[in-house]
């Protein structure tokens, strides 16, 4: 079972595409696990998860939340970090695959409500 460690829900007000230059970019990282990813709900499993968080810190990368497919072969992970390279290095420290990195900003379904008839 995935547990999102942090789940921020704020929107960037005004322009969904705008990011302040001082803020860290946000990325979605797609990872593929052909054999299916299993993380046991045991102390070992917890240790592995926290290990990932700690590894990420050395690259100033923050794991925000992840989404996983039913068969556990693919995950979509939301990360904040300084660059795609930092994301890759952090993944390397934790032995996680990186299949694609995309830079994203948040678009909310109700954002345009009231924006004009």
């Amino acid at each position, binding site marked *: 079972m995935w547990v999102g460690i942090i789940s921020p829900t704020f929107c960037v007000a005004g322009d969904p595409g705008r990011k302040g230059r001082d803020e860290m*970019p946000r*990325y979605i990282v797609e990872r*593929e*696990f*052909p054999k299916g990813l299993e993380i046991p709900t045991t102390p070992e499993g917890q240790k592995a998860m926290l290990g990932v968080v700690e*590894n990420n810190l*050395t690259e100033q990368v923050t794991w925000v939340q992840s989404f996983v497919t039913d068969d556990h072969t693919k995950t979509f992970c939301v990360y904040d970090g300084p*660059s*795609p*390279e930092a994301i*890759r*290095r952090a993944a*390397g*420290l934790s*032995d996680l*695959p990186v*299949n*694609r*990195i*995309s*830079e994203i900003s948040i678009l909310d379904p109700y954002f345009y409500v009231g924006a004009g008839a």
Partner: protein
Amino acid sequence: MEREGLLESLGERLRDAKEGKGSLVLVAGEAGAGKTSLVRAFVESLDGSTLVIQGACDPLSTPRPLSPLHDFAADPNSGLIGLTSEERSAIEMFGEVLDRLRNTIRPILVVIEDIHWADEGTLDFLRFIGRRIEDGKAVMVCTYRDDEVGPDHPLRSVLGQLVPLGSTHRVVVPPLSLAAVTKLASDHAFDPRELLQLTDGNAFFVTEIIASGEGLPHSVQEAVLSRVSRLDEKARRIVDAVSVAPRALEMAHAVTIADGGLDDIDAALSAGILLADGHRLRFRHELSRSAVEGALPPARRLGLHRTMLHILEEEGSVDLALQAHHAIHTDEADLSIQYAPAAARNASSRGAHKEAARFFEAALDHSDRIPDDDTAAMRVELANELGIVDRRPEALDQIDRAVEHYRSAGDELSLARTLIPDTGARWRFEDAARFRRGISEALGILERNEPSGDLARAYVTSAYQHMLARKGMPASVELAKARAAAAEAGTTDLTWMITMLEGTVALVLGDTDTGSRILQDVSREAAAKGHRDDETLALMMLGSGSGEVRRYDGAIPALEKGVEHGLAVDQDYLVAYCRSWLARIAFEQGRWDDAVNYAELVDRATAYRKGIAILTGVSALGRVRVRRGDPGGIGLLEEMVELSRSHELQHGWNTICGRAEYHWLTGNPQAGLDELAPAYQRALDTNSEWARGEIGFWMWRSGAIETAPDGAAEPFALQMAGDWEGAANRWSEIGCPYETALALADGPVKAKLESLAIFDSLGASPMGDRLRKVLRDLGVGGVPRGPTKETLANPRGLTNRQLEVLRLIVDGLDNTEIARELYVSKKTVEHHVSAIYSKLGVDSRTKAVNAALAVGVVVR
């Protein structure tokens, strides 16, 4: 009081130093916060087992270069006598100080005050020592006014480089609290709350008000001046005299000024306004000094500067900056003219170019009183200093004015000389048209006369510019003329340069083997003669020139040597330049993680975002992102294309091609043509086969041309002619896996599958996806799904980074050295090491090395 915590942390640093772990401590605080008092209290608390060496920076707008080092040399106990007296380079002096700090039995405390006033040379010194102080029994404590160090302040970039180091610590001296102010004011009739509000807790201000004993003044100046005004006129004169001496006044000089009135000096001392510091008189604080100086009536101030200058002359002072300072402040033109230029040249020779420029400007303020010829000559000197500190438009203006003078005076020889820039002054080559006009005129004049060293120099410089523009024939022609002219004039000091340029031209424009050989020879020759700058130049040419023509075996050793050398002598630009090329080469060889590492080092180190190092390094990063399909690639490349406009073609073509590649990969090939087409025209103007090849290739890919241009580099030409197999083989020989795969992708299914395997192993997702689609459309079955974790991982599951660390462990480096090598913190290295041990199933370094070699993960 209240400072115990700070004193304790200083004490801790000294204890560490005794164990052999040195550090740099930066003591920050606003003016008057009490930094000096803190440091003084610390020094006083020490017993004789610590050697204390002290120095300070001057509050002059044109300080004495390397002032603190002069202070060290003047202290008989420092063991550094003679440090500054001989004609040595700054880097040699720094090395001597470092040796002193390392080869010591007693721990050493070095104190340098007020580094916000440091000249350029002293800033280099701080950086040099700060980076190396960890090994040794020394603590270097530097105080500075953090409220005066804004984003453009020269100290800022030095702090930026030193603060992240593990051996650097920062201590901030905060304002006084209400409790502290209450305690200080306890025996006096001041309301602590009012006092605190007025002074904002500024220690100096508080103590000054308390000492003055009267009502609350409105400002620090008022507080200081009210105390001073209570002195009689003669004592006041002494105080005024001390106020124009930047740091302190020699007691002997004070006596001279006092006209033998020693009582007056005593009066100032007992009133607590001045302190006797050894054989010198000083104010308790720089704030008092500047308050008094600011209140001086103009006539008195000018008179005092005149007196000080006279005193310095009489005793034969060699402090050129101080004499020039006083001379300039007498407002007497003749004195400025007499003293400033010498101080400027001295500053320049010590690497203090900002200060040198200011001194020349001070002299030239009175150019109406200087003979025109001397003015013109000084303008050229000023231009050189301005060029070095990146004030290019002003520098060019000074050159123009000098040229104007010589032209109207009919002084042809001086005119010619002025029009021939030194090859080291890159700022004079940036505007190619301007350069060409100037050198033509100079050559016109010199060719009319007898062959001379100047004529040879003009040919060399002209050839250099042709080489920069990658125009082989004109460069070779000029170099031959240079040889002939030098021979006829009997000049031998240009021979090395001519040979070096011949080698460079050969390397980048056709005969790579000859070119490499020549450059290696001249580099060795320079090294043998101890001409380090020449050796560096030859290495840079060899490294980047070989890189440009994809001769990696020649490029990499030269560039690595450049980095090593640059690190040793703190030549940051050399290090950045060589690393940027190593980034580009790593990119071309498919070692993308290495490319990223090098590029990040360059990006982090270079505060100056306009140079070639940034252009090359950041472009490499951008191209890696494009080839991996990572975000942010095109953004970087667009930024670099802008930057490339002010540099020659060979520095920008890689960037422009990367941008075109992005557009081709994202299905919009014509979008890259706006930059590509003009670059292609420029490439056709040069003789560079690699420029014609790569730019031509992307023109071809973007549909703008059908066949390869003449003289395009072989692998590109082959692929454009349809010989994908020949191209792939050639690329494979050169060592560029991505280009190999691009060529194979043009072949039949079997070749395409081989190509796909290469792209997958590199992590080139865009090309991988594209090929998979093509193969699917062709109906090919059994196409591999994509790079799996198993194929990408290394044996034993070590990550790339861990492999890097393991290799360095096998090379025998300890964790500190590894951290320095990889530019990460020691903690990160320790983290990697423990992960490596766990994956290899070992518990010691030796066992890790054996396991690594046994498994074949690392090969010796």
